[in-house]
């Protein structure tokens, strides 16, 4: 025990000496660590401290090693060490600046507010046209404020279908990348860039109009740079237009409804730098049509829906196979008010009818079930029940179904007991590819309806659904009628 205590103590002392040596050597060799050591000159380091971060796109990629006054006293020099990740992003034309709280005036807004409660840090931006890589020890002139080109970094990405166009104005009144593009007081896009024409005769403002609003821009649209304007006279009174542009100017446009044609990408239009004397057209009368106060009355007929099924069958030895199926389902509301679609299991369960070729269970993934209603609405559906005895019958529940969705009346669904009509009166009701119901087909000995045509279709007798049209066997092609009475009670209407 005595020796063990001495051994532990000796090891501790040795470890402490090694630890001290390691810390000292690390501090001495900080400049030699993997990465890129740079010196950046600033007129004012404005709160930057040794140990502060160097960030690129908000990610810490280096550390401020020291701050000193240049030998001539004219600049402050921050020595920063970029780690390999940061060094890979920096190049000779990268712009370095110090992020501190800045207020760019009424139009410029405030930036760097996070450094109110955090240390100031150095950040940099590298243009798309990268220059050559920086070498260790380079002395770089830092920027005293963020470069204008930094702003697009905060813009939303352009999405496919957005309208990209340019508005040419005689004078820019504070527009900057990110400024809003307003139509009828609603933001429909944003300014992407503001550039002076090469010959200096106008300012080109590049806009993005969101895809859903691009039809509002026509060749008749009038654009202007919105800024507060005072109109009127001493005796008539004054009015101020576009007061909202006081803090942040924006681009506004207007087009009379129904005038002009929709423009293409790259459209260039001249605009004034002041508001034109126009008044937006009044709200059209047809827009005043009141929405129905209550849900539409429930129809007395069957409600047939079109079902689309898609999945992937994973194969170990070969490429994965897509699984696809389409067919019909019968929609009704169960006792809990849920929108239930009853259909053939072989339509909505790939594992039920897909054969993997090795007499094993297929591995089905990424199942998607979509239900197309008669009015064109597409809803997702989840399979909530399949017949436990292997019959080709399944029930789906629609997700996010409208609360006013109507279903097949309960009296048209026959779940048990004798069928009033003789079998000769059987008919098939099904939905077409567009969701609309196809004409009924009488099911008789001389009428052959294939499963491809009517899988999951409702089989009716005496105007009542008694079952669905499904497969006789899981992997078979022979059709049969699956009785609706197999459906469990809790999925039936009251």
């Amino acid at each position, binding site marked *: 025990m005595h020796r063990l205590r001495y051994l532990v*103590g000796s090891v*501790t002392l040795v470890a402490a000496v090694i630890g001290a040596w390691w810390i000292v050597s690390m501090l001495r060799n*900080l400049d030699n660590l993997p990465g890129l050591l740079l010196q950046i000159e600033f007129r004012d380091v404005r709160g930057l401290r040794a140990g*502060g971060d160097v960030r690129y796109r908000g990610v810490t990629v280096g550390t401020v090693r020291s701050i000193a006054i240049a030998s001539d006293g004219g600049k402050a020099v921050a020595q920063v060490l970029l780690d390999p990740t940061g060094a890979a992003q920096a190049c000779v034309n990268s712009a370095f600046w110090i992020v501190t709280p800045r207020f760019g005036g009424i139009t410029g807004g405030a930036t760097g507010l996070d450094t109110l*409660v955090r240390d100031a840090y150095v950040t940099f931006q590298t243009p798309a046209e990268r220059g050559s890589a920086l070498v260790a020890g380079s002395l770089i002139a830092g920027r005293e404020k963020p470069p204008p080109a930094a702003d697009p970094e905060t813009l939303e990405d352009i999405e496919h279908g957005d309208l990209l166009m340019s508005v040419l104005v005689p004078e820019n009144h504070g527009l900057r990348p990110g400024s809003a593009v307003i139509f009828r007081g609603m933001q429909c896009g944003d300014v992407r860039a503001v550039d002076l024409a090469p010959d200096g005769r106008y300012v080109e403002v590049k806009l993005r109009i969101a895809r859903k609003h691009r039809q509002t821009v026509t060749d008749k649209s009038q654009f202007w740079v919105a800024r507060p304007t005072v109109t009127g006279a001493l005796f008539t009174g004054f009015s101020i237009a576009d007061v909202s542009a006081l803090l942040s100017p924006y681009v506004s446009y207007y087009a009379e409804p129904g005038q002009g044609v929709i423009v293409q990408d790259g459209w260039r239009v001249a605009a004034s730098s002041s508001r034109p004397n126009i008044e937006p057209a009044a709200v059209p009368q047809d827009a005043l049509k009141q929405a129905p106060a209550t849900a539409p009355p429930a129809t007395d007929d069957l409600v047939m829906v079109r079902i689309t099924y898609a999945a992937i069958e994973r194969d170990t030895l070969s490429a994965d196979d897509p699984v696809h199926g389409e067919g019909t389902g019968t929609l009704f509301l169960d006792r809990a008010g849920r929108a239930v679609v009853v259909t053939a299991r072989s339509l909505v369960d790939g594992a039920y009818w897909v054969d993997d070729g090795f007499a094993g269970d297929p591995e089905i993934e990424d199942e998607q079930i979509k239900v197309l209603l008669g009015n064109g609405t597409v809803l997702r559906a989840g399979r909530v029940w399949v017949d436990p005895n292997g019959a080709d019958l399944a029930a789906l529940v629609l997700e996010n179904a409208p609360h006013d969705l109507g279903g097949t009346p309960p009296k048209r669904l026959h779940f048990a007991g004798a069928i009033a009509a003789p079998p000769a009166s059987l008919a098939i009701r099904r939905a077409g590819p567009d969701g609309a119901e196809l004409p009924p087909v009488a099911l008789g000995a001389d009428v052959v309806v294939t499963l491809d045509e009517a899988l999951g279709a409702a089989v009716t007798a005496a105007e009542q659904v008694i079952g669905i049209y499904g497969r006789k066997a899981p992997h078979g092609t022979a059709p049969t009628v699956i009785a609706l009475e197999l459906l469990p009670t809790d999925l039936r209407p009251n």
Partner: protein
Amino acid sequence: MSPALEFRNFGLAHRRPGAEEVLLEGVTLTLVPHGFYLFVGASGSGKSSLLRVLAGLVETREPAPRLTGELIACGEPLTGDAAAARDKVAAILQDEGLLDELSPRANVELALRAANRSVLLAPGLLAQAGLVDPPERTAQLSGGMRKRLAVARALASAPQLLLCDEPTAGLDAAAARKIAELLRQAHDQDPDRTTIVITHDHAAFAGLCEGVLVLDPMTRTLALQGPEFRVAGAGVASTRNSTPEPAGLHWLRSCLLQASAILETVVESWRRLPPFELGQVLRTAARFSIEPALFVAIAGAVIGGLAMFFALRNNPLQGGFESALLTGTGKVSTAVLVPLLCGFFFTARTVAGAAARLGTMKRTNQIAALQMMGVRPADYLLTPLVWGMVIAMPLVTLAGVVAAALAAALAAKAVSGITMLGWATAYFATVDARDVLVVLTKSALSGYLVALCCYHLGTGPKRSGAEVGQAVNAAIVFGMALVLAVHATLTFAVYA
């Protein structure tokens, strides 16, 4: 040839608060050389006090006994500066004063070295005392063997006057007789030697002595009787004459002695700084460094880690200014907080043991034995203590500071995900070589003062085990106070 011992109107009195106890007065007596004398008298009559005066073992931190007349040993006066007589006198104290931390042979070798004699004589002296093959550790010796070793060690300086205080106490009759015969043999081997044995055991020395020195407590005088003299009765000291001494004067004298003792400790620490035994200094430094290292390192890691953890976790700015927090915490931890607490932990861990060791040595007359051997206690005890603590405290503090820094790095990583590079840059941003120098200076100075405190309190008068315990407590408290004072003063002086 000069007499072995000569009293000329000699008087001896203890100074007590408010009183002065007279033990001897008007003693005039001459003992011829080469006599083997028994010294008898009632218990508490002052035999041991006279022996300590003869041996020069007067407690310097208490009012010294008042000596009157003349006392001459081996031709050298013992009153006043008695340094010349010290080399000629040796004493075997009642509880031997063997240095338990040394082996039996090393005890004898130390005495030989102190007497400037060859250490090769040690086996012969041990064999002469009947210890041919002694155990390795002195603590393993039996009572009889301890007496024999004490005799061997006393003979190492070849004294002309050998004083023995109850050498047969605690032994059975046979063992007592053997010790008595051993003393007689040792006496006979040197024709210049005079031996005086304080004893109540006449039977053990029957036929071995030439005379009996009798202290009469009634008359407070000494008389030399024939070898067959026996003390009548139980031998209990009777009443003493006392001469009142003002209590205030006694208190003032005690205070001045304490102050001079502190000053003496400081002066001794410088005068005796060159190591008497380099090996002992190195062993002490190693022990003081190694034993508390893990304890202090763990304590430092806990302090450093918790300081960083709470600084970052309880940051009111919710993660803001973390590098500033790192820098501030790093500076205060490295330069002030952790060194101070490491000094506390080091003091608590080492001072108790060191003070207890010194107190026990004082209590068991080991320090008196050192003085008897001619070894300055400062050489043997203070110098290793000073060197050990001056070396060990900075080293152990360094371990604590390093552990605190690494724990802080882990805490910074765990709480805020700060990288090692970022931590090192910010944590040590304002720590420089001056801080390290100040920390080492504070630690070394603390170690020096703690060593002085420990030595001074440990080697003070000890009449009971309770006084040893009080000395240990006082050493810890005053040691920590000194550490705090040094750190606060130097920190304020350097940084304020």
